[in-house]
């Protein structure tokens, strides 16, 4: 992935916020759901993953969410779709490492790299990670 300028990162966040392609109810049964609610933000989300034969077949989410959580969760859904469970876990781990300003494998995160500055606004880390925590919860024990 080429190096992104700040302006490019901003427009990626705003695109995924204003037109989140993955923000909808699951199209059919079989999805696993985790509900997440933030103590300090408006975020009140359901995250849905469809897991079949060791593959994350689909991911979507729905509910009320702020700019950062909407955009971050939308990007996550794109990233997880079609991945093996173990790869999905690695992507989620990399995202958490980035949030904590630890070393991480940039190649795993693709567009999700736009949240690299979240740690500047520590109060919003919870928003950026809320969808990722839900997906992690669903994949736990699989």
């Amino acid at each position, binding site marked *: 992935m080429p190096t992104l300028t*700040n302006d490019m*990162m*901003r427009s990626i*966040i*705003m695109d995924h916020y204003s037109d989140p392609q993955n923000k909808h109810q699951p199209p059919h049964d079989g999805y696993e759901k985790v509900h997440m609610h933030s103590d*300090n*933000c*408006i975020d*009140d989300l359901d995250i849905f993953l469809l897991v079949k034969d060791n593959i994350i077949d689909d991911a979507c989410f729905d509910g*009320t969410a*702020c*700019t*950062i959580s909407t955009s971050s969760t939308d990007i996550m859904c794109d990233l997880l779709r079609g991945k093996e469970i173990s790869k999905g876990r690695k992507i989620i781990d990399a995202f958490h490492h980035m949030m904590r300003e630890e070393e991480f494998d940039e190649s795993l995160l693709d567009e999700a790299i736009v949240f690299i*500055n*979240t740690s*500047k*606004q520590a*109060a*919003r880390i919870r*928003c950026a990670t809320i969808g990722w925590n839900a997906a992690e919860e669903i994949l736990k024990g699989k």
Partner: protein
Amino acid sequence: MYDVKEIRKQFPMLNSDIKMQNKPLVFLDNCSTTFKPQRVIDAMNNYYYRFNSNSHRGDYDLSYQVDVMIEEARKEVASLVNADTNEVVFTDGATGALNLVAYGYGLKYLKKGDEIILSVAEHASNVLPWFRIADLTGAVIKYMDIEDGKLLAKNLKRVITKNTKIVSLAHVGNVLGYVADVKEFAKIAHENCAIMVVDGAQSVPHLKTDFKDLGIDFLAFSAHKMCGPTGVGALVGKYELLKDMDPFVTGGGMNSIFKKDGSVDYRLPPYKFEAGTLNIAGILGFGEAVKFIKEIGVDNIHQHDQELIDYAIEKLKDYDNIIIYNKDARNGILTFNIKGVFPQDESTLLNYKGIAIRSGEHCAKLLDNYLDTKATCRMSTYLYTDKKDIDTFIDAIINGGDILDAYFN
């Protein structure tokens, strides 16, 4: 009025190089908590430096002096709200005080089918204890309507019945800041043989609150919202009711005698409700904070709050994209949203500019249907807030820039 500039000199938080996001801190979240003047910090330190001993325990001078100091603090708090000294119970805050009424009075006297009246604008600490008591006793919670953000007597009359035993409402709401006519509400409650509990967390620091004149039965408030320390507050209650009430926490210092057969004599109020070693430094800081705000004058503080909010509203009135939910509340609370911007995104942008405000539901989670928005931004002032703080805030919300500036600049 008083000289805000002089007052500000007394607050270490306002006279340091404290920065937020590398910008000078502008603190406009005074509904959540307030800064402490040096004299309050000194009063607390003084206990640890010079008077460290337990109260009600020792047969020696140091302990006796601490007892005297605690009782002086109690006297200060009582005089602030015009109550008798023995009507002031020290608690760990307004939340602790409301829980004490709920468990000490509600649990003892409520039975199945009795009613507790609240409003949807109440803070969690004046809702959840009553939920518990309703669960434990079979009592029913009812809500009086709010109209234009206000609690009105006619709406209390509409919902109160002969089964109502408790009416528990905030004197000043923590989201919208309107003053409720709790004197009238107490009359209505008493006509129906119910008691009137008042959450004074947002009123006592900002508004002259006269316990006797209001005729209410219980008043709960916190020290930290009036320049005092965290972790301490008071429940003021009519003495006869306090005598009848059960203790919520039992232990040392609150009993006169107990025997193997399980019999126990509790001390008289307020001591019956003060089990264990108290937050002594906190109480002494509380007493000093009360002295401080009495010297400034609660009426002056109220006027100062009003002037600042009027000033802010005047400056914002021509901006159509700013929704203000409580234009005529004028109690040091401005609740607003910017069209198309999530409140948390706005508060993050303000954080980036060094300005502390609160966004969210402000612990009043039943209110969202009424406001037609799930969350709001709340700017709140106190006695040391100056016009420059308001100017910085207004400049930031008017010339806000992009909400993502907070992440990319």
